[in-house]
């Protein structure tokens, strides 16, 4: 096995999962995320990408990130809404600070929302339950679910008003 192939294999073992996780967050589709990461490794194996000697993992992260951004750009408005993807143009240079902001937002929600509002918020945005399912799970009405979510979003907007719109 050539030295380069060995390096690619080591990179695959070392950072494939991390790349896949990032692509999943960006594309909200497991299959497409897998495709995006596989494409990058295929291009690498075909010699179409030149790995830098310093920080090859960071390089791969950037390539996969750009690949995901390109895929999202090609989606229609409806496709983005269906996957609940951002409508804003992604700026690769601000993704790290964006990630920090949104994880802070979740921490804020957990610490400051009432336990019921936090639970509704979590069931919807973490576990992806339908409003009806949340209502059934918590023994409340669907209207109450909307009220909790509306309250949560208003509070978050006041504090973490998205800048990417």
């Amino acid at each position, binding site marked *: 096995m050539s030295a380069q192939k060995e390096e690619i294999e080591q990179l695959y073992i070392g950072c494939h*999962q991390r790349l896949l*996780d*990032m692509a*999943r*967050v960006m594309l*909200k589709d497991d299959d497409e995320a897998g495709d995006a990461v596989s494409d990058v490794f295929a291009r690498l194996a075909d010699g179409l990408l030149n790995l830098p000697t310093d920080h090859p993992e960071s390089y791969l992260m950037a390539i996969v990130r750009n690949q995901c951004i390109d895929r999202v750009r090609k989606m229609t*408005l*409806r496709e983005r*809404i*269906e996957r*609940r*993807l*951002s*409508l*804003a143009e992604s700026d690769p240079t601000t993704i790290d600070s964006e*990630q920090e*902001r*949104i*994880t802070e*937002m*979740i921490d804020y*929600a*957990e610490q400051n929302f009432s*336990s019921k509002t936090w*639970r509704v*918020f*979590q069931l919807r*945005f*973490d*576990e*992806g339950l*339908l*409003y009806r399912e949340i209502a059934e*799970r*918590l*023994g409340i009405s669907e209207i109450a679910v*909307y009220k909790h*979510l*509306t309250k949560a*979003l*208003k509070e*978050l*907007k006041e504090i*973490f*008003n*998205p800048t*990417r*719109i």
Partner: protein
Amino acid sequence: MKDIEELLKMTERPQDYSDEEIRQMMNDPEMRAYYELMVDAEAGFALKRSDTSKVVKRPACYTISHRFMKAAAIFAGILLLSGISFAAYHFTFGASSPAEQGKESPTQEVRVSNVHQEEITESSTIRTFENAELHQILHELSDFYHVGVKFHNEQSRHIRLYTKWDTAAPLKQIIERLNGFEKVSICLIDNQIIAE
């Protein structure tokens, strides 16, 4: 300004809306800002989930007696993990050795697999969690017993367990049983389940 409730409905069932209705909704700056917040919320949870480097510490409220597992345990099970991570876990059914009891638990790295799918089955009184994450289990308990849940350590949310829950048992007893798992450290304080 359009209604947030309408936006919530649209994001759940976009198929019920025409392209024009979606476009109009998203042209409203307020609605668009709320939509972006929803996107951020999902991404925020996903980011926290994707952090697979788990460091779990034992909390102050943990006592060694909690590590016993009895045959008639309300909670009983094993940690289900795959690959390399499986070897990182072991489960203690009996009492720990005196030497082990006397020493501080070291910080341990735990890699959590996301290969398995969680499955929750329900019978009249026994609920089975298969490869469920700790936060899911604790929130089920929280909903059922009407108490809060707080995680002091983000990584402990994602510890995966196979376990059974008898819904007729008191919460304190269940917490004691859950603490029988090697990596689980929780306690009940002021109607709140605290997980370290």
